[in-house]
C-alpha cells in the first residue's frame, strides 16, 4: 500500500470513527470524506459499508444519487456555474458558453492543467445578483464574461 493510500485510509477511518454512530450517518460520512479528500474514492465504499453494516450496493446507490458527491478527484478548484431560471434571465447561458470556451472543457470535466473542474449547479440563492457562480465555497454575483475571467484567474494565482 502506497503512502498516499495509507493517508487516504487514515482519513476515511477517522471520519468513520467520528460519524458512524450518528443516526442517519451516511451523508455526514460522505461529506466528511469528500471535504477531506475532494472526492469519495471508490475504495472507500467497502469500508463505509462495513462500518455501517450495509451492502456496498446501498452505499454506491447513495453516492451516485447525489450530484454533490464525486468518485474521481476534481481539479484544484471547482467552478460551479448556475444554470437555473433567474440566472438564465440575466444571460447565464451565454456565460456557460463563454466559460466552456475559456476553460476548454465541458461540464463535469477538468482542465488539462488540473486547475479547474467545471460543474453546473441549480441555484446558489444568489438570484438577486444573477448570473451567479461559486468557486470552491466562494460565491460570486453579477458575473459578466469579463468578471468570470478575472475571478477565475485570480483564484488560480492565489492558491495554485
Amino acid at each position, binding site marked *: 500500500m502506497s503512502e498516499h493510500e495509507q493517508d487516504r485510509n487514515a482519513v476515511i477511518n477517522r471520519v468513520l470513527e467520528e460519524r458512524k454512530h450518528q443516526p442517519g450517518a451516511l451523508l455526514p460520512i460522505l461529506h466528511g470524506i469528500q471535504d477531506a479528500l475532494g472526492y469519495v474514492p471508490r475504495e472507500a465504499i467497502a469500508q463505509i459499508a462495513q462500518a455501517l453494516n450495509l451492502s456496498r450496493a446501498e452505499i454506491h446507490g447513495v453516492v451516485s444519487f*447525489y450530484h454533490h458527491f464525486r468518485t474521481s478527484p476534481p481539479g484544484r478548484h471547482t467552478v460551479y456555474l448556475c444554470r437555473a431560471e433567474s440566472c438564465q434571465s440575466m444571460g447565464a447561458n451565454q456565460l456557460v458558453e463563454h466559460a466552456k470556451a475559456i476553460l476548454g472543457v465541458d461540464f463535469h470535466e477538468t482542465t488539462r492543467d488540473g486547475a479547474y473542474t467545471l460543474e453546473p449547479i441549480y441555484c446558489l440563492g444568489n438570484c*438577486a445578483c444573477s448570473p451567479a457562480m461559486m468557486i470552491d465555497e466562494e460565491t460570486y454575483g453579477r458575473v459578466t464574461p469579463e468578471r468570470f475571467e478575472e475571478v477565475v484567474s485570480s483564484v488560480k494565482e492565489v492558491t495554485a
Partner: protein
Amino acid sequence: MSVRVYIPRDSSALSLGAESVASAVAVEAARRRADITIVRNGSRGLYWLEPMVEVETVQGRVAYGPVTMKDVAALFDAGFLHGGPHALSLGPTGKIPYLQKQERLTFARVGITDPLSLADYAAHDGWKGLRAALAMQGAAAVKQVTESGLRGRGGAAFPAGIKWKTVLDTSADQKYVVCNADEGDSGTYSDRMIMEGDPYVLIEGMAIAGITVGATQGYIYVRSEYPHSCRVLAEAIALARTSGHLGPDVLGSGKAFDLEVRKGAGAYICGEETSMLESLEGKRGMVRFKPPLPAIAGLFGKPTVINNVITLASLPIIFAQGAAHYRDFGMGKSRGTLPIQLAGNLKYCGLVEKAFGVTLRELLYDYGGGSASGRPIRAVQVGGPLGAYLPEQQFDTPLDYEAFAAIGAMVGHGGIVAFDDTVDMAAMARYAMEFCAIESCGKCTPCRIGSTRGVEVIDHIVAGRERDKNIALLEDLCDTMINGSLCALGGMTPFPVQSALKYFPNDFRSSLNRKVA
C-alpha cells in the same frame, strides 16, 4: 467613542465583494486611528445597493452603497463615520422607500443585528416567543398557531397548526422537528437570508415547535449549495446551547430540545419532505408514498413536524405578539406576511416582506423598478421551477394562495423571476422538462420517463416536425405527469410548460416559421 460600522456578511453581499470592503474599512480606520467597531450584519435585502455599509450616527443609522474597496478612502475623507455626504450616500437606512414601505415581521431583525450576538437578539425582542410557548400547554400552543392562520411557507401552504396537532396527538417515545432548508427553487433566497442574517429566530422557532409537540431533537436540512449558511447556523446552535436556549433544560423549564445541522448533497428532490426524510436517514432521496403522513410516521418512523425555514422563523413573533397580531395582516385565507424575493431581470432585486395581497405589478415595477435590461418584461415565473410562466395580462393578480391557484399559478416560496422580451419561452419550457429529468428521483414513471420524453417532444415541435401532432402529444404527456406523478416534481413540472405553450405559442414555431409569422 467607538463608531459602529455595519458591513454585511450575507452570501450575496459577499458575492459582490463585502469581505474586501470590510478589510479595506478596517485597514483605513487603523491608518487614520479612527475608533470603529465593525459589525458583520445580515443583509437588509436591497441587493442592488450591496455591499451596503451602514454607520451608527447620532441621527440613527445611515447607509452608503453600493460600496467597493476603491470607495473606502473617499468615504473616510467625506466623514462617513459621522454621516457625512458622499455620492454613495443613501441617507437614513429606515427612510429608504423600498424598506419603509415593507411590513417586516419575520425579517424584523435581519440586517439590523449582529446575527451571532445573543445580546443583540435578546435586545431586539428575541426569545419572547419561546418564553410564551414554555408557559403554555401543548394544545394551547397549537391553537395559537392555528389561529394565526400561518400556512407552510415552503410552497404547499398547508396550515401549520393542523400538522402540529397531528404530531402532538400522536404518542411516541421520540418525536422530531425537521426544518426544510433545502431552498432549491430558483429565484428564492429568503431562507438563506434568515439563516445567515438572524439564525436565532429559526432556532427559537424550532424550539417552540419542539416544546409544543413534545419533540426533543431537531434537524435543519440545509442544501450543500449554502456552505456559508451551514457555518453560521452551526455557530449559532453552539452559542444557543451555552446560553441555555437549547439543550437538556431549555431556559430552566426542565424540557429538552436540541438541534443539529445536516447538509444536503445537491439533490433538488430533497426539498420534497419525504425525500428529505430519506436523505436524513442516510438513504437515496427517494420520495415516499403517503400515507403514512410524516406527522405520524416521519423521520426514523417517528412523528415529525416538518416546516420550511420561513414558517418556523415566523413563530417567535406569533408567540411573542399573539396570533391576532399576525393574522391581521393579509387577505382571504392567506394570513400574515410573505417575504417575497425579487429576482432575475429586474432593476431592484431584493427582499420585500409584505402582507399578502400586494399585486405582481406593484412588486415588479414599484419595487423591482422594471427590467434590469431596460426592455419590456415579457414573462414572470413565480414559485420556482415548478411555477407557471405568467404574461403581462396577469400582472394584476394579488399575491394570495387562492388568487394564484385560480389562474393556474402558485405563490410557492415567494420567489419571483422576471424575464425581458429576449426570452425564448420554448427554451424555458424545454429547460423545465430537462431540469425534471436531471432531478427526478426516478421512483414513478411519469416523472422519470415523462420528463425526458418532454424534452424530445419540445425539440420536435421547435424543429417543426409534425408540429400539431407533437403539440397534442406534449399536452397529453403533461396531463399524464400531472395526474400520475407521485410528488410535486413530476406533478408540477408541466405547469411552466403548459403556460409557456398557452401564452407564448409563437415561441414554439420553428425559427423559419417564426419569421414567416
